[in-house]
């Protein structure tokens, strides 16, 4: 459905994406994961025919995004990151305009369908400026869907939503993914894990990893960090901690907080707690640290580097 080969885009001297290659299969939800500035939006804009790449090729449903741009644009539904809308139009008029621009058959009927699908029936005559952030996001999704596209490209569709709306939009995307090909960009790892069939991680314009969410998770959660807070006297605690099975090393001790790196696939917390308490220290807290996205990228990029390095 979506084929990308050696895609490169330069903004002046800055290389936004660097020979990116990937593909998305039919009825697959591909998560496009990366920190801000990784090149997600640039890639997406090239795929949607908004701008041409500096070099490389991309095609959607067999149509080249540069040479057959209009064919591509007919088949793609696109929700830009900023979710641009016309505030002075009513929701119905807006969707009808978008449907007409994309030459949708039975435009009004189709508009009513997507309004129903997005649960916006009671707001169809409201001006877009009066809609809440969550409703606007749904209006944006409705716009992307109104011409019944084969391919949906959603750039951070859950940004700025409250938790209830988040769940709603995610399940909606999953439903849509049963009959459509979806490229979903996000910078939230758990979202990609929850919604996507396959995840693609990019950083600094380059592909860092490509895997199923489960496999990716296990790759990432090899060694973990544990935070432990000790009250009162902490003298000599290092030796007690080091002795525990599964502890690789102590990364830092500061104000009674220890950061500990574990050996891969171990759970030393019960033993750690026992060891510290039986040695007479006051254990205030012990918890597993969630890796931030940045740490994951660091880990994954380090992993790749390690693979290449002749050790």
């Amino acid at each position, binding site marked *: 459905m979506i084929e990308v080969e050696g895609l490169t885009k330069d903004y002046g001297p800055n290389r936004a994406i660097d020979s990116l290659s990937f593909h998305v299969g039919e009825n697959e939800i591909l998560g496009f994961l990366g920190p801000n500035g990784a090149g997600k939006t640039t890639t997406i804009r090239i795929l*949607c025919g908004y701008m041409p790449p500096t070099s490389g090729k991309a095609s959607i449903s067999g149509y080249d995004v540069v040479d057959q741009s209009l064919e591509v644009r007919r088949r793609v539904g696109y929700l830009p990151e900023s979710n*641009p809308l016309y505030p002075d139009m009513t929701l119905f008029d807006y969707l009808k305009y978008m449907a007409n621009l*994309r030459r949708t058959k039975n435009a009004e009927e189709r508009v009513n369908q997507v309004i129903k699908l997005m649960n916006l029936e009671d707001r169809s005559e409201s001006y877009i400026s009066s809609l809440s952030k969550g409703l606007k996001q749904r209006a944006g999704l409705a716009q992307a869907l109104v011409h019944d596209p084969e391919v949906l490209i959603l750039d951070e569709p859950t940004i700025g939503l409250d938790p209830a709306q988040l769940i709603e939009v995610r399940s909606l995307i999953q439903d849509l993914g049963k009959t459509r090909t979806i490229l979903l960009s996000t910078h939230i790892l758990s979202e990609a894990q929850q919604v996507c069939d396959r995840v693609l991680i990019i950083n600094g314009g380059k592909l860092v990893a490509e895997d199923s969410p489960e496999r990716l998770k296990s790759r990432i959660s090899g060694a973990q960090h544990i935070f432990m807070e000790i009250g009162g006297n902490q003298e000599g605690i290092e030796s007690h901690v080091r002795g525990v099975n599964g502890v690789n090393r102590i990364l830092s001790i500061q104000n009674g907080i220890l950061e500990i790196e574990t050996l891969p696939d171990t759970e030393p917390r019960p033993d750690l707690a026992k060891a510290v308490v039986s040695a007479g220290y006051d254990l205030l807290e012990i918890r597993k640290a969630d890796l931030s996205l940045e740490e994951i990228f660091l880990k994954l990029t380090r992993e790749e580097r390690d693979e290449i390095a002749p050790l």
Partner: protein
Amino acid sequence: MVNIWIIASREYRRYFADWVPYMIAFVMLAVLGIFFYLNLQVSIIQPGYAPGIEVFLAPLATMLVLLIPAVTTRLLAEEQRLGTIELLLTSPVKDYELVVGKWLGGFLLILTIVAVTLIYPLILNQLIEPGIDQGPFISGYLGIALLGAALIAVGVAVSSFFSNQIAAFITTLGVFIIIWWILDPVARIAGAGGGNFELINYLNFSDHFFSNLFSGILDLRDVVYYLSVTAISLMVASISMEMRRWR
């Protein structure tokens, strides 16, 4: 073609959600009404004087130059500010269709407002014997339409380079003032100095209106001039949209 119409008709309808067209129509009717009244007064004081169509056409042309920037600045600049340009440029619409659609929307609005001003010539036609001169009436209003088409196209071209509407407005107004008022004295001075003023004179926007169309002479050169300004400006705007993609 259908795309152009979809964009134009939406743009046209959207104007009326705002106070801008009513404001423009009000200002035009008020100013033209004042001129009309004053000329009627003069004709009462001076029995030999009968006002003609020119008493509306000259101020109408000037009003277009001053008011069209208010119509055109938002056309593309607002899409860029809102970010909706991204939706338009990723819709199956060619860049020139977008530009021409925007231009047509603005042009239809101006035609509507100009149509409202027709009430004055119609009233005048009833007041004077044997009615107004048909020639200047037709060629004058044709000139107004051509002038409007060209000015809106220039405005669309300027709007395509901006995302800030106020900057687009001021620049459009500046360009209009130069081509409408400043080129004329420049051409005269260059002519008096014995220099080559043919080109400047040809570019002079107001001369093409006032020399012939205004006085009832339909010269093809003037029609071609305004139509080519329209076409070239719309081309510039299309290229500007295209360049936006490459940035």
